[in-house]
């Protein structure tokens, strides 16, 4: 165990890289989630079906296969070159985005139809109703789910190590290969735990706060 001590700094750096790629992917997921989520709750049935296909596809295919597809497949299609970092960010964003669409959709649908009708009676249009009436209520459902998605992204980013992106898990494996001990993986596990458990406790508090603040 003491052989891992000189490498603690490297492992913490790996954890920061994991945190960085997960945060970036979370931001992109949020963008996808809000845009596609609005489409998924709209009246345009073709667009709704397209959103459905995207969500079902992402949820039915392993994250690893999605990462492989983006890293090896997409460059062939578009004749471009993606670094492991770029490929992993794209794949994780699409992955988190699909779950975020569901979080946004269920948030919007948790707001009753009467709210829409009341807003209509006050002659508010779609966007103003969405922004001032629906969104503030939908966030009670969406925010706790978004924190859950952040945790999935933190854990999922470990899969990016397979295409050669050196984040926390890959750092631990590289150290293991030089000192032949289980301890770097153990330390990596502790670091993952601290990040994810902290977030899930935070998520629990957010949820509880919104529950009692509910109308």
């Amino acid at each position: 165990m003491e052989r891992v001590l000189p490498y603690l700094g490297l492992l913490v750096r790996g954890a920061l890289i994991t945190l960085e790629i997960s945060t970036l992917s979370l931001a992109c997921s949020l963008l996808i989630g809000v845009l596609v989520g609005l489409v998924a709750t709209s009246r345009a049935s073709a667009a709704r079906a397209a959103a459905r296909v995207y969500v079902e596809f992402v949820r039915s295919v392993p994250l690893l296969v999605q990462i492989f597809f983006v890293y090896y497949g997409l460059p062939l299609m578009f004749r471009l070159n993606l670094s492991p970092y770029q490929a992993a960010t794209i794949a994780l964003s699409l992955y988190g985005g699909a779950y975020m669409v569901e979080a946004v959709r269920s948030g919007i649908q948790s707001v009753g139809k009467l709210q829409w009708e009341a807003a209509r009676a006050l002659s508010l249009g779609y966007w103003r109703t969405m922004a001032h009436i629906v969104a503030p209520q939908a966030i009670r459902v969406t925010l706790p789910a978004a924190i859950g998605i952040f945790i999935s992204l933190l854990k999922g980013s470990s899969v990016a190590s397979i295409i050669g992106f050196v984040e926390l898990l890959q750092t631990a494996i590289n150290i293991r290969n030089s000192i032949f001990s289980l301890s770097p993986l153990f330390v990596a596990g502790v670091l993952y735990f601290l990040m994810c458990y902290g977030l899930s406790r935070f998520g629990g508090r957010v949820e509880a706060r919104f529950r009692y603040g509910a109308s």
Partner: protein
Amino acid sequence: MTSLFDPGLFWRYRSVIVAGAATTLLLGACSVAASFVFGLAGWLLKASKLRACAWAGGAYVEALRNTPDLLYIYGLYFGLVTVGVTFSAFTSAVLALGIQGGAYIAEIIRGAFTAVSNEQRVAARALGLKPWKSLAYVELPQMLRVAFPALGNQVISTLLGTALASVIAVPELTYQSQIIGDSTYQYFSVFSVDAVIYLVLVQALTRLFHLIDHLWFGPWRGTV
């Protein structure tokens, strides 16, 4: 330059792909079975009246739910060599996916147990049923009904998790796809078909679970 999508490829490699899909299903089935065993054990530990056991159960669930499954696949396959324990790649993957899935299943069972109201237990006792008979005939059937959709989702995520076993060279679908890709450079075709196979498997399972849920529990929906 060859075309982006080459259907002939899959005819040439059909036996490899079928074997890969079969291994994926076998690995998935074994991992799901293992996850139920670990899940039941985890729940029993967590629900135990002994403080130490309950703490250990809680620690198991929280630790496993907040760390990535890939860590356990590597840990069991490479890590334990230094301690003198070796597992085959297949066994490592089954154990890793099993302990990971078990943590989620323990929570699902716990949720179902709390959903079955205490009156049911009291009523069963009043009818003279011993605790284990009450569990087997009164509580478990109701718990299963509550837990069924969540358990179905968990089975699917374990099946999706089997793709990670490719990193330790278990010859499942994704591993085979990588091999075919490496030798033909047809990565686009290979991984599209790989994805579609998973999609079909998962969608078929989802439909099957919905059907079972409807047939077995449909008439009792919302009665707990």
